[in-house]
């Protein structure tokens, strides 16, 4: 069993008085791809925001490389090698494609990812490198967001709603690129609404329902019935 890279224990998350996560436990091993599924409002994005430090957590709830990161600021966590491809891509509109990618490299971590290797993964970005990021199509913007996260040379990359708002053919392109990314020995958490897509690329799957883990299993053995029960909460 490879070493766990990320350990989440009893994670609670709040937006003011509203509690969005209730005692979530989760573990990601080195080189593992984890899928997190769940309906709208189940807490998937909240989980991502907690891990990346965009929401503040209680102490001891999230450990990364055996180090407690639950109280660190988002930028301190990013420097530890944890990158996110955020929902809705969140590119910087006044910057060009190349500059957006360069922002990812600000953390200054060494590794296989550089402008060249990102351009090799997504050749279209090299053609468009001097264009404003918002002038690209949705799929190309998603590629910039992925490239930007990779430029930080993370050990763990989070994809939040990777296929949201994209045409099916683009989603296929993005998923085709995934093995090239994860093949570099990186761990990944993929948040996805499309369950079959999520299962096809991951080794294990967690399902969230109303802020709790409703199902945890290996992706090739979970049954459709289990998933729909965990997803919708119907017996």
């Amino acid at each position: 069993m490879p070493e766990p890279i990320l350990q989440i224990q009893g994670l609670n998350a709040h937006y003011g008085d509203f509690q969005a996560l209730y005692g979530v436990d989760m573990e990601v091993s080195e080189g593992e791809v984890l899928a997190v599924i769940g309906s709208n409002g189940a807490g998937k994005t909240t989980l991502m925001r907690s891990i990346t430090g965009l929401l503040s957590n209680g102490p001891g709830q999230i450990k990364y490389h055996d180090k407690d990161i639950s109280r660190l600021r988002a930028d301190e966590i990013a420097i530890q090698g944890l990158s996110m491809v955020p929902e809705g891509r969140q590119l910087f509109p006044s910057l060009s494609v190349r500059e957006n990618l360069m922002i990812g490299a600000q953390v200054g971590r060494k590794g296989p990812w550089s402008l060249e290797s990102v351009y090799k993964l997504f050749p279209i970005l090299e053609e468009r490198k001097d264009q404003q990021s918002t002038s690209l199509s949705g799929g190309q913007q998603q590629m910039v967001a992925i490239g930007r996260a990779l430029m930080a040379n993370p050990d763990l990359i989070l994809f939040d709603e990777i296929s949201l708002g994209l045409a099916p053919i683009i989603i296929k392109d993005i998923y085709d690129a995934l093995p090239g990314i994860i093949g570099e020995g990186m761990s990944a958490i993929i948040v996805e609404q499309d369950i079959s897509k999520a299962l096809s690329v991951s080794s294990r799957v967690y399902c969230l329902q109303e802020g709790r883990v409703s199902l945890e299993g290996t992706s090739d053995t979970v049954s459709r019935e289990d998933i729909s029960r965990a997803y919708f909460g119907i017996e």
Partner: protein
Amino acid sequence: MTLQDYHVTRSSNAARTAAILGALILIALVAAPWWAGRADMRLMGEIFLYLALASLWNLMAGYAGLVSVGQQAFVGFGGYMLFALTMFAGLHPIAAIGLAGVFGALVSVPVAVLIFRLRGAYFAIGTWVIAEVFRLGFAQISSLGGGSGSSLPVAIVKSLASKRAMRESLSYWLALGAAVTVITAVYLFLRSRKGLALTAIRDNELAARSLGIDIWRTKFTVYVVTSALTAMIGALIFLQKLRISPDAAFSVNDWTAFVIFIVVIGGIGTIEGPIVGTLVFFALRETLADLGTIYLIVLGVVAIVIMLKAPKGIWGLIRARFDLQLFPLGYRVMVPGKTDKS
């Protein structure tokens, strides 16, 4: 027309023309002591110093989102440093100006630590309160004239240059140098790695944070650098005026309200904006100053109309209309067959 026909460039004909024109204007301005009268040189010197103040405030508010209404704290601090360092430490005025910048940076550190805990309107008011504290503080120092202020001793003025014409030229060149240095520094900073991070923060603070950009430190750096340079400009301003008092040194009207007016009507968040704004401000001031209070009312009306009709300022209008950028920071797509219209 295929896709390959398009090309993307940072530079443009307009930017190149502007660079050449700018260089010519700069040469003419440097030569001003040989062609301009005393009053004109004095006015131009003042214009340059306002241009520098406005460019600095624009970097801070327009790019780093730090809307301070208390920069007069550093203008006054710099002015007083000039007086204190030349009168009591016997420094040459130019050395004192440089040192005023260093002290300005030092004093801005605890100020930043304090006021960075505040956000938005609270931050703005906090900066103003700090400036008032500075004013009251300097009014207590009796060796600097207390509340009534003091004049720069003749010997120190003469140490700059013995002849009056030479002194006036020198102080004009210092003002021109300050404006050019500040604009160049802002431009180079925005094109640097740190500037990239600053633009990213302005675009999307949350995304910038989750990509490892330390927002606090980036804004802190901008605040300290801006404050140091503002203190140096303050020293220059009072080297021109030769007299300092707490009310003049820490005037919120002179050093912040007018500066905000310049940046807002010119176009906040652009390098060109403060230049346009300064020219408009001085054009208004020179034509309306005789009207007394009406002049201030006109300024207010102009500010309100521009904020309502053109929230991105005059330069924002020009840029939207003609797609013009004189300081090439962004990129543009060139369409073949269509000439560069700007």
